[in-house]
């Protein structure tokens, strides 16, 4: 008797982990890409996730959708438009932030862009709060939760799978783009040695801008997906999601794309397990402890290169 419910619970939680893990993975990708290319922890990145959620909220409510869309064709179109619009807007936002807040400080001591990033983070939070109000907003969950399937005794909404698929598609596309395309090569070379890349004719500014565009777009996708799945958003959600996603990126190995995704899912599962065991109020503390432990004992993360030297 217990076994069945246990298996069902575990299965349900497994899919929960996939969902939140996927969201963290998408955000973590942005962190890791930006860090890889300009060695800056974009403190404001978590806020981009939050902005993405609000932008998609506006897009969906702007077109008049407030609840589940049961017609698959309409749903597909609506989702496609929402994704494209939101990711585009977020990408542009990301490029603007880089252009105006980070680029002037590219050669300044580390302290400067870091503090600026914090400032940008607060600006974004408070702008959204000013525009949309300070309370949580219910989002249109256009992907019907009624669509479910049964597995191992648990009833899983299809949206979970949808989110996972979106994560996989975006990650794979990103990897392929970086590995195969000309711009991807430019990004890789800039990440390894900016001066040499420049000498080889790579346009550094464009390359970095593109990196921010992609990273921000991915954060935007995470925001859409979050709104679709959890149904409420508020202007403070970027802060802790950002820190958690950053932990995921570090756990996987900062600068490593696969690592970011791996880290995202691991942290997602940790969070779900903690909730299952009744420690949900402590998840933040647990995740940050993971961050500290990783940075102290294995700073290169799971998939990063071993950098073992002392200063």
């Amino acid at each position: 008797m217990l076994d069945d419910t246990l298996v069902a619970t575990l299965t349900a939680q497994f899919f929960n982990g996939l969902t939140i893990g996927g969201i963290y993975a998408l955000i973590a990708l942005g962190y890791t890409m930006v860090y890889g290319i300009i060695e800056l922890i974009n403190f404001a990145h978590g806020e981009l996730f939050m902005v993405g959620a609000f932008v998609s909220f506006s897009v969906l409510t702007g077109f008049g959708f407030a609840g589940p869309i049961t017609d698959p064709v309409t749903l597909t179109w609506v989702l496609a438009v929402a994704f494209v619009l939101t990711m585009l807007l977020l990408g542009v936002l990301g490029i603007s932030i880089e252009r105006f807040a980070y680029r002037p400080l590219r050669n300044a001591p580390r302290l400067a862009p870091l503090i600026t990033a914090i400032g940008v983070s607060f600006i974004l939070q408070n702008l959204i709060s000013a525009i949309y109000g300070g309370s949580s907003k219910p989002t249109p969950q256009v992907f019907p939760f009624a669509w479910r399937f049964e597995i191992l005794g648990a009833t899983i909404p299809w949206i979970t799978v949808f989110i996972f698929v979106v994560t996989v598609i975006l990650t794979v596309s990103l990897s392929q783009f970086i590995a195969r395309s000309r711009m991807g090569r430019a990004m890789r070379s800039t990440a390894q040695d900016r001066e040499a890349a420049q000498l080889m004719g790579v346009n550094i500014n464009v390359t970095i801008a593109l990196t921010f565009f992609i990273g921000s777009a991915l954060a935007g996708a995470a925001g859409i997906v979050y709104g679709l799945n959890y149904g409420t958003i508020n202007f403070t959600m970027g802060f802790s999601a950002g820190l958690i996603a950053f932990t995921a990126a570090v756990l996987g190995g900062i600068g490593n794309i696969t690592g970011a995704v791996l880290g995202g899912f691991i942290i997602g599962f940790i969070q779900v397990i903690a909730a299952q065991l009744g420690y949900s109020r402590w998840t933040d503390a647990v995740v940050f402890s993971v961050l500290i432990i990783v940075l102290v004992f294995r700073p290169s993360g799971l998939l990063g290169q071993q950098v073992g030297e002392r200063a």
Partner: protein
Amino acid sequence: MTEPTALPGSTTPGSDPEVLLHARSITKRFGGLVAVNQAELVIPKGSITSLIGPNGAGKTTFFNVVAGILDPTEGQIVFRGRKMVARAERGWLEPFFWVGPAVVTGIVLLGLWALFASTNPEAGLLGAAVTLGVLVVGLLTGIVRPLWYDRLLDRAGVFKTARPNDMVRAGIGRTFQNIRLFQNMTAIENVLVGMHVKLHSNIVDAILSSRRQDREEAAARARSRELLALVGLQGRDEMTARNLPYGDQRRLEIARALASDPVLLLLDEPTAGMNPNETEEMKRLIAKLRADLGLTILLIEHDMRVVMGVSDRITVLDHGECIAEGTPEEVRANPRVIEAYLGVPAA
């Protein structure tokens, strides 16, 4: 290779008191890249030794191992009869020192509590707090590594490689290939930092602005001015380092390295970027440092005039390996050396 470690000033059997530094079989791997491979170096006291070789030969890497900045993958460095740099030994033992006292305290307190006060929960809490406190102290000792802790580790056979500041305390001073002065500090402040290990004012002296600190600072400043004059920078005390001309910056770095009263001075390409006049001056300064201050000097150099003009012995590295060692004449005539530099076999 384990050599019995000894405290400074004593010698171990089999080591020559005239050998200041002995680097044995130093190998340094970075992942797949072998930067230094089984390099050997013996530096007699009072000598000037040069380390030369084509670019990328591993000279700076080797230097950094000697200075305590990099851990060697294999091999060891014995300085003044004491093993200073090598891979850690019995590292697994160290955590026991951190948690051991706490565990012991915990067990003892637990025992006492069980025997005498088990009805008193507050006493139990107090005991737990004390144990936690001992644990924290243990961990902090491991982090801070005071001298008595190092000696304790020595006795237990635990070896931890020296950190850069330990090497300075032991008597090694160094300069850097790319000049690493404290750019926004003045010349005299740079030298004062170099003197750090010789000064003893601590935080209490600072807060109380004690007379001891005043005296020490005044003496330190006087000594710093002497050092600046020694390298030819007299009167420039208050100039900000970044505003000094290039040659002066190199000399300031030497003054800073001298401030800790080192026995061995490591100079990394001291004449890089200098014109012939400046190079001549530097050559003379190096010779003077040995003659007047009795310093032993190890230098990396590319300028053969300096190398040939000032060295007692030369070691040649190529692709991380020692390919020759000897007096300037011997090395100059060595066919392997010629090949390494010119790339063609000698006729």
